[in-house]
């Protein structure tokens, strides 16, 4: 179709002068999409302004940031250390990089799906809205192309048909998708972090399977999460814990939601890559300013080196969140090079 639409609304004059009258520095950054709501929060905007910052952000897949022209930007804020390290090397950024907060990767499920997984030994549930996903059992099911129809109890839920899989983002452009592969390869490799070509070879067919069954994947973590919320999409979706925590913060209970913590998961260390002095000042501020830390916790991020703060702030969401990460093992992340190669082979 080639239709040309008209001008939809008149331009309201005078928007250009937004920043006038205050002594704020405007800093521009590219961020992982899961942090967009944090930076858009009026309280965050206010807290930053109080420290003299106006922050303008744009979302991108963490690995895709490397392909962007970051001229004129003050910082990049990918979702983990690996892409941050790569950006730091590219732009010659001085270490250490500010890492204000982290978030484990979790799987969101509708209750019907979570209960079927539990009934078939793929998950355990702690209460109605929280549980643990048994990664080894899940990977075994994936290896054998297990379908929902083959699982006991799935026939009671019309939507539970087709191959059982966790929907993740494109591991070549997005951090969460890549970290999913890191966790899977760690479990499949018998608790060993992949370091060599031989290690990559060993788990490549399985990782390829985890990705290829999904078909087209989204390029950042906000997409599949939104599909899940709108009632579309796959019954199991890999997201950051912070995304769920934010949702629960806005909406006290999400009736049908179960948060499954993989028994082996990967923590995503949200890492600031300062490209200018202002960018570095902002990164430091996010780590140290008590108000901003508190707001980050409200958005479901875990501040580095302090679990008590997170536990206190998310007390009302404890039915869904595994606050102390009990029974959750952290898989170490392979080097960027290994991770890239893993992702490339998994995408085929």
């Amino acid at each position: 179709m080639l239709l040309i639409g008209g001008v939809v609304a008149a331009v309201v004059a005078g928007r250009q002068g937004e920043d006038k009258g205050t002594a704020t520095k405007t800093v521009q950054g590219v961020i992982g999409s899961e942090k967009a709501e944090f930076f858009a929060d009026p309280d965050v905007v206010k807290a930053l302004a109080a420290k003299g910052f106006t922050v303008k952000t744009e979302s991108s897949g963490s690995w895709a940031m490397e392909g962007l022209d970051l001229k004129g930007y003050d910082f990049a804020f990918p979702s983990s250390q690996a892409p941050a390290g790569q950006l730091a090397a590219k732009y010659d950024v001085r270490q250490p990089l500010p890492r204000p907060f982290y978030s484990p990767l979790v799987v969101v499920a509708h209750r019907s799906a979570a209960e079927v997984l539990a009934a078939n030994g793929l998950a355990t549930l702690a209460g109605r809205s929280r549980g643990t996903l048994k990664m080894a059992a899940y990977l075994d099911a994936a290896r054998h192309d297990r379908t929902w129809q083959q699982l006991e109890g799935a026939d009671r839920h019309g939507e539970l048909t087709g191959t059982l899989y966790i929907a993740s983002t494109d591991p070549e452009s997005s951090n969460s998708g890549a970290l999913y592969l890191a966790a899977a390869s760690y479990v499949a490799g018998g608790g060993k972090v992949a370091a060599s070509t031989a290690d990559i070879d060993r788990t490549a067919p399985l990782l390829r399977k985890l990705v290829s069954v999904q078909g087209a994947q989204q390029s950042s973590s906000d997409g599949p999460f939104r599909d899940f919320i709108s009632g579309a999409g796959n019954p199991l979706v890999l997201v950051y814990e912070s995304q769920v925590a934010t949702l629960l913060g806005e909406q006290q209970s999400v009736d049908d939601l179960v948060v499954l913590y993989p028994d082996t998961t990967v923590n995503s260390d949200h890492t600031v890559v300062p490209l200018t002095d202002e960018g570095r000042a902002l990164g430091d501020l996010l780590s140290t300013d008590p108000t901003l830390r508190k707001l980050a916790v409200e958005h479901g991020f875990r501040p580095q080196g302090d679990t008590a703060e997170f536990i206190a702030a998310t007390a009302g969401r404890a039915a869904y969140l595994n606050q102390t990460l009990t029974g959750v093992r952290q898989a170490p992340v392979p080097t960027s090079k290994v991770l890239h190669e893993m992702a490339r082979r998994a995408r085929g």
Partner: protein
Amino acid sequence: MRRRLAVLAAAAALLTGCTAQEHKDASTDDGAPRPGTLRVLASSELTDMKPVLEQIGKDTGITVRPTYLGTLDAVDLVAKGKADGAYDALWLSSNDYLRLRPDAAKKVVSETPIMSSPVAIGVRQEALSRLRWKPADVTWAQIEQAVQDGELTYGMTDPARSNSGFSTLVSVASALSGAQSALTDADVAKAAPRLKEFFKGQQLTSGSSGWLASAYARRGNVDALLNYESVLKGIPDLTVIRPTDGVITADYPLSSLAAADPAARQDVRRLAEALRSDSAQRLITERTHRRPVVPSVKPAAGLDTSRRRELPFPGSRSVADGLLDSYENELRRPSRTVYVLDTSGSMRGDRLDRLKKALTDLTGDFRQREEVTLMPFGSDVKSVRTHVVSPADPGSGLDAIRKDTDALSAQGDTAIYTSLEKAYEHLGTGGDTFTSIVLMTDGENTSGAKADEFDTFYRGLARTEQETPVFPILFGDSDQAELQHIAELTGGRLFDARTGSLDGAFEEIRGYQ
């Protein structure tokens, strides 16, 4: 297929091929960047977002200047770099196809899903009772069975032009192939015989959802429409069914383009935030029947929230393009088209050259099994030349069309109505094909039958013959009222090539053939 995209992309860059209606808006829009105004390349389905965007314009001061284009063509445009500097954002029904094209995907920075709508089937009340279907419990396999039994006919948009058609095609292929995960080439090949049966039930095709709805209403004898739930909900008397064995859902990501100015990209972010606000989400679901993507807003009344399996979208371009290719060339019912071409004296020179070029270019776009008739006219029909693009040797039919095109010459008066009557006589009843007439003229009727005589002729046709629409193209000094009347009488649609290229109009009409 690929050839077609190239031509259409070029046409789109020139902002041509629009209808008379939209053209008026376009004349005030020079496409230049302006602060506070976002130039958005958007799926045609998004025309219904006008009231929402107006509200957001009031709230944020951001004006959206949309250019509507089919998803596949938009992706091609982006991949070729032709959107660079021409658009600030991309807003398609889905970025699934875009992701299969790395050259296009890398031009996008951020993607913010705004709302969602699944593929569904809308069934007429009478057909629903006849089939004794329970709307909550219908599968694609049942739909297929009803088609096979001759109990169900339907219309859908052209998958090559419209995202709704493409998503429908993938949904149907995934469901009928029995594939448990994302479609592969082997799945598509295996499903081909079943799909061919299924598409025998398709009685209407369209380049846009809007025209599909009006053609459906006019026909009165088509049982159902396949489209997005949001589109079907807007059509009276349809019961909207989401098949229980799976659907594909569009999530409308507003995407900023890497080549856009940073200030414009900030406006894209602000626009996305505004669209995600509770008030906008509420307005969206109430006005457009799409589903919200924030948990604080519930889907509008009438949108059933029981869950459906989400069918995975193919993960490779070869599968997606292969499916599209087999739909066009093997699976769908073939087309029979008559091109009624004005070659009167006034066409001499540049106009005739443009016609020849447009037709020659169009030969890259004819499908296998398609029957194409060239009917040049002046004071009367000059010749009737029919060619079939045979799957065994598509080249020879296309060569013959090009040869006949090259031999066109301009002389005589303009006998529009007499020629149209002859086109109807030539086509007769359609049989198992999509029939249509394209009328290209650069002037008003000056000889042969008069307008009222043609009206009488048309009303005297058998009902099946009347189902052939005429798609007139405004060109040169043609009479808009006259051509509009022909389009309305026959259930066609008017296209405008007066300011842009004739290629663009011909290409756009392909979606309706």
